[in-house]
C-alpha cells in the first residue's frame, strides 16, 4: 500500500512538472518586434525590408549573425545617404526557430509594408516562409538555408523564382573542387572515396563527377564505404593501384583524417581534396600525412581585406560572439538586395507594388554579377536560383589550415 502511494505521488509530481512546462511555453506570446526604424528622414519616405530569423534559442548564433551582418550593411548604406535619399528601414522579427512563428513573423512584416526579405535563417523555417512568400512574389534572400528545397521543389519541378541565397548549397562544392583540381592543380585523373549513406557526401560527389566530365578529368575509381567504417585500406590500395593525380574525399573530418592517414600507410601519395566537411581535420591526423591537402569552404576568417574590414566593423558594433560565416553571407545578401532596390527605385516604381517586387527579383537575378561582395566577387544564379559564387580554398600546411585563395 505504501509502495502504491509513493508511486502515485511520484506520478502526480511528474505530471505537475509537465503541466508547468506546458504553460510556460504558451506564455511566450506571439512575435515581438525588435528594432525600430532609423530616426526618420527628411523626405519621410523609407524602403522597408524584413529580417526574420531565430534570434533567440538554440540557433540564435546563426539568426543573430544574419541579422547583425545584414544590419551592418544597411546602416552603412543609410549613413551614406541611403537609396536615392530614401533610408532603408529594417523590420526585424524573431521566429524562435519555429515554423509557425516564422510564418506569423513574415505575415506581420508584410502587414507593415516590407518590400523584400532577408531570411529566413534555418532551412525548415525558410521552407515554411517560402510557402507564403512565393504566392506574394516577395523578393527574399536567405544567407544561410542550404537545402535544395528552399528554391526548388523537385516533386512539382517548380523553381521559386522569388527566392535567392548567398550561401552555396552543398553539391556546389563538388563542382568547385573539380574546377580547382583541373585549373590550379593540373589534375588529369581523379579517384573518389565517399560515405555511401551520407546525403552530403553523395551530393558533393555527384557534382564533382559531373564537373570532372566537363573539365576533362578522368575519374579512374569511385570507392564507397559504410557509415562507421574505420578501415579503408582495401579501397585505398585499389585507388593507389590506379595512380590518380587527386583523390576527392567529400566526407566529414573524422573519416577524412582516417582515410588520409591510411592512404599514406598504403603508399598512396596523391593530393587529397575535400569539401567544407573536412574543416577541422588538422586535429585528427598528423601534419605530414595531411600536408598539401585542399578543401573548400564558404568563408575563412581574416582571409581577404574585404573580410578583415567587415570583421572589424562587425566586432566593433556587435562583438565577436555571433561573428560567423552567415554574418558574412548576410552582409552580402543585404548588398545584393539593396543593389536591386536601387535599380527598382531608379525605374521610379513605388515600393511595395507588384511591379516593384518583380523589378527587384529581376535585378537580383541579372544585376548582381559585378558587385564587390565580401564572400564572392559578385553573384550569378543558376536555373534553380542557387548562387554561382566564389569559394574559399584552404590548404593543410604544417598542421594548420591556411587560406590559399578565393576561387
Amino acid at each position, binding site marked *: 500500500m505504501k509502495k502504491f502511494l509513493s508511486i502515485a505521488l511520484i506520478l502526480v509530481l511528474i505530471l505537475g512538472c509537465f503541466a508547468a512546462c506546458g504553460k510556460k511555453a504558451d506564455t511566450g506570446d506571439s512575435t515581438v518586434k525588435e528594432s525600430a526604424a532609423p530616426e526618420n528622414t527628411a523626405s519621410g519616405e523609407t524602403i522597408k525590408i524584413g529580417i526574420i530569423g531565430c534570434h533567440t534559442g538554440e540557433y540564435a548564433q546563426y539568426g543573430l549573425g544574419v541579422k547583425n551582418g545584414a544590419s551592418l550593411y544597411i546602416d552603412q548604406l543609410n549613413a551614406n545617404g541611403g537609396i536615392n535619399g530614401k533610408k532603408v528601414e529594417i523590420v526585424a522579427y524573431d521566429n524562435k526557430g519555429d515554423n509557425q512563428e516564422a510564418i506569423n513573423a513574415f505575415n506581420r512584416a508584410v502587414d507593415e509594408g516590407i518590400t523584400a526579405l532577408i531570411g529566413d535563417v534555418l532551412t525548415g523555417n525558410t521552407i515554411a516562409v517560402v510557402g507564403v512568400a512565393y504566392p506574394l512574389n516577395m523578393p527574399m534572400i536567405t544567407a544561410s538555408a542550404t537545402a535544395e528545397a528552399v528554391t526548388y521543389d523537385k516533386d512539382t519541378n517548380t523553381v521559386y523564382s522569388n527566392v535567392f541565397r548567398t550561401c552555396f548549397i552543398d553539391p556546389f562544392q563538388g563542382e568547385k573542387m573539380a574546377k580547382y583540381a583541373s585549373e590550379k592543380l593540373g589534375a588529369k585523373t581523379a579517384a573518389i572515396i565517399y560515405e*555511401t549513406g551520407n546525403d552530403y557526401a553523395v551530393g558533393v560527389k555527384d557534382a564533382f563527377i559531373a564537373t570532372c566530365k566537363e573539365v576533362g578529368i578522368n575519374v579512374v575509381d569511385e*570507392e*564507397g*564505404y*559504410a557509415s*562507421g*567504417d*574505420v*578501415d579503408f*585500406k*582495401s*579501397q585505398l*590500395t*585499389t585507388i*593507389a*593501384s590506379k595512380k590518380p593525380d587527386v583523390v576527392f574525399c567529400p566526407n566529414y573530418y*573524422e573519416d577524412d*583524417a*582516417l582515410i588520409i*592517414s*591510411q592512404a599514406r*600507410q*598504403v*603508399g598512396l601519395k596523391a593530393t587529397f581534396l575535400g569539401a567544407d566537411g573536412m574543416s577541422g581535420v588538422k*586535429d*585528427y*591526423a*598528423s601534419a605530414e600525412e595531411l600536408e598539401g591537402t585542399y578543401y573548400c569552404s564558404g568563408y575563412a576568417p581574416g582571409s581577404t581585406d574585404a573580410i578583415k574590414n567587415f570583421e572589424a566593423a562587425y566586432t566593433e558594433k556587435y562583438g565577436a560572439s555571433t561573428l560567423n560565416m552567415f554574418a558574412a553571407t548576410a552582409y552580402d545578401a543585404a548588398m545584393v538586395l539593396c543593389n536591386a532596390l536601387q535599380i527598382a527605385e531608379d525605374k521610379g516604381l513605388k515600393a511595395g507594388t507588384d511591379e516593384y517586387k518583380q523589378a527587384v527579383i529581376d535585378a537580383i537575378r541579372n544585376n548582381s554579377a559585378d558587385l564587390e561582395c565580401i564572400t564572392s566577387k559578385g553573384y550569378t544564379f543558376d536555373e534553380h536560383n542557387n548562387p554561382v559564387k566564389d569559394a574559399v580554398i584552404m590548404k593543410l600546411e604544417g598542421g594548420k589550415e591556411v587560406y590559399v585563395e578565393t576561387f
Partner: protein
Amino acid sequence: MSLLISQLINGLQSGSIYALIALGYSMVYGIIMLLNFAHGDIIMVGAYVAWLAIIHFALSPFVAIALAILTCTVLGVTIEKVAYAPLRSSPRRSLLITAIGISFLLENLAQIIFGAGSQRVPKLISGPSLNIANQHISFTAIVTIIVSVISMVILTFLVQNTKMGKAMRAVSEDMGTAQLMGINVNRTVSFTFALGSALAGIGSILYCCAYPQASPTMGSMLGLKAFVAAVLGGIGSLPGAMLGGFCIGLAEAIVSAVGLSVWKDGVVFAILIVVLIFKPTGILGKPVSEKV
C-alpha cells in the same frame, strides 16, 4: 597480382587485430562459458590510456604502450573480480547480461569523461616502409602482423607448457574436478582474464597504429567482429580464434577489394549466420556431447 598481395596484407593486418581480440573471447569462454561482451570495450580503454599518456602526460610512446597494456590487464582482472566472480554459481544468463552491462558502463563512462567525439592518438610507432616488387607495405602492417604472431606463439607456450597453462586447461575441462585436484580456480580464472585482457591491450595499440583515433564506441563493432572470428574458428579453441581472426580480416579485405566495401559488415555477419547454421562448433571447435 601485386595488387592482390597488397590486399592480402591489408587483410592480414586487420585480421591479426581481430585474432588477438578473438583469443580473449575464446579463452574466457573456454574457462567459464561466458561471452565477455565487455572485451571489446577494454580495447577502447587501452586506446584512451595511450592517448592520455601521450597528449596529457607527455610520456614517450614506449611508456604509453606499456601503460595501455598494463591498464587493460588490470581492468580485465578487476571486472572479473567485481562483476563476474560473485556470479560464478548463478545461471549463465546472469553473467551474460552482466557482461553487456559492463560494456555499456565502460562506453558511457568514456563518453562522459572524454566526450562523444573521437580523439587523435599520436603516432605510437614509426619506421621505414617496405617496397617489395614495387608494392608498398607499411611499417605498421609489418609490425602488426609480427607482433600478433609473436603474441600467439607466447600464448600457446604459456597454455601448453607452463603449470598455470595446465591449470587453465584443467579448469576449462571441469572446474569442480580441477578444484578437487588442488587447483586454485579463482586464481586461474583471474589469470585467464589477465592474459586475455593483455592481448586486448596489445590489440588496442596495434589498432591505434592503423586507425589513430580513440572514440567511446570504437570497441563495440571491433568486439563483435572478433566475436564472429572466435565463433568461426570454434569458440573455446585458441588456434581456432587465430584462424577465425585472419579469415575475417581477409574476407573484409577481399569484399572491399572487389568493390563491395559497403557490404563489408554484412558479409562478416553473414559468415556468423552461415557458421551457426551449418557448423555451430566452428572450424576447429570440438563438438560437445550433452551429458544426460
